[in-house]
């Protein structure tokens, strides 16, 4: 993918941004459960490694690689975003790809023009939605946890009592069926019944488009917890799909508290009429 010129690095952006990272969401009103409730969004301060994990997903391998790149004086004149691209590709090549089956590897590098989110305005499936950029609004209720995402305005329900959960159709669905429980200070969510879809192995901000696909055998365990200082929401996900993965993948995501942000409707998607195939090679 060819480089693209963007405008100036604008310090004003930091000021005009929500600037809410120092605030924490309101504590949960429910007693006896970890306080995860509130609006979370992009990481705008603190450790660069956390910002890396805000742009899609990250792994321990990728974070370590980024640390090495940042500490290398030879990279002092390179933009951080370029180092992100290098670290992202490194974790794809050294962590994700070795854990894919031949079938999973065969799907790598899918054409972005085939993305149903692009071609059909079809919202993302589970594996991409849980790492979606921007806001995540968490609402903790007695019998369930609601997850509302800024990207696609998508909503998930995590049922805390599986027996009371309204089982939907037996067919796999875009976001699957989720049940959860609290484990100390952590919300643990188990999701199955996920329809086959794109897998988010590579994002287009890295230098290659390297997404792949997963099957409807995908299962996931998400673990949500606050950071020690309370200002971050940390997600660790274990993904297991026997069709595309030879062993489970452990991916991470970080958000910052953002009580002043809002989620807006996502109702104006326009199906493209004028596009080309094969742009991933740009």
């Amino acid at each position, binding site marked *: 993918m060819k480089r*693209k010129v963007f405008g*100036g690095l604008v310090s004003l952006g930091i000021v005009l941004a929500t600037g809410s990272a120092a605030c924490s969401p309101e504590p949960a009103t429910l007693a006896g459960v970890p306080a995860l409730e509130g609006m979370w969004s992009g990481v705008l301060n603190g450790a660069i490694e956390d910002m890396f994990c805000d742009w899609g997903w990250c792994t321990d391998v990728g974070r370590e690689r980024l640390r090495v790149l940042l500490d290398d004086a030879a990279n002092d004149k390179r933009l951080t975003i370029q180092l992100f691209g290098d670290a992202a590709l490194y974790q794809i090549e050294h962590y994700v790809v070795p854990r894919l089956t031949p079938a999973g590897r065969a799907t790598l590098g899918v054409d*972005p023009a085939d993305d149903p989110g692009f071609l059909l305005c079809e919202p993302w499936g589970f594996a991409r939605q849980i790492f979606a950029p921007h806001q995540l609004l968490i609402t903790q209720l007695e019998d369930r946890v609601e997850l509302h995402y800024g990207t696609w305005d998508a909503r998930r329900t995590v049922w805390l009592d599986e027996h009371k959960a309204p089982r939907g159709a037996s067919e796999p669905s875009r976001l699957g069926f989720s049940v959860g429980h609290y484990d100390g200070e952590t919300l643990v969510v188990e999701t199955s019944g996920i329809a086959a879809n794109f897998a988010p192995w590579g994002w287009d901000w890295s230098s290659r488009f390297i997404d792949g696909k997963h099957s409807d055998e995908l299962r996931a365990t998400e673990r949500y917890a606050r950071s020690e200082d309370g200002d971050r929401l940390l997600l660790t996900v274990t993904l297991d799909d026997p069709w595309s993965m030879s062993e489970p993948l452990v991916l991470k995501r970080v958000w910052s508290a953002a009580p002043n*942000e809002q989620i*807006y409707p996502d109702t104006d998607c326009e199906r493209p009429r004028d596009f080309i195939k094969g742009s991933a090679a740009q």
Partner: protein
Amino acid sequence: MKAKLIATTAAMLLYAGSIHAHHSTTPVYDTTRTVTKTGVVAQFRLVNPHATLKLEVAEEGGNVVPWIVEFDGRVNLTRFGWNDDTLKPGDRITVMGNPTHSNSPRMFFIELERPDGTQLRRAMIDPTVGALEEARRQRAEQKH
């Protein structure tokens, strides 16, 4: 594009693709080329997943060609303070963006200049870009 920047540095950022887009834009837009058009705002819709601008551009010979300028979504733009009035009908503006592969009258926004000379750039939409370099600067200070 002549510009009076509303904020600092002239350092240009090079980076690939769209960071926080909900999908890749490369099937539609040629990120290796740019096009610049001056025209009158007919409509600005600050919506998700992508905001759009209708720009009436007077071409040579007097024909007015309606151009569509596509932006990142409201979810991105509002984080940087954009609102429904950032671009108003009747405003005469100059916009630069990536053209479509087919050269249809459409572009993906990179930067624009408003009637008062202020300039808006795509990098400004994503405060993460500025925050990143600030974090990097602080990290370098600690290292030394």
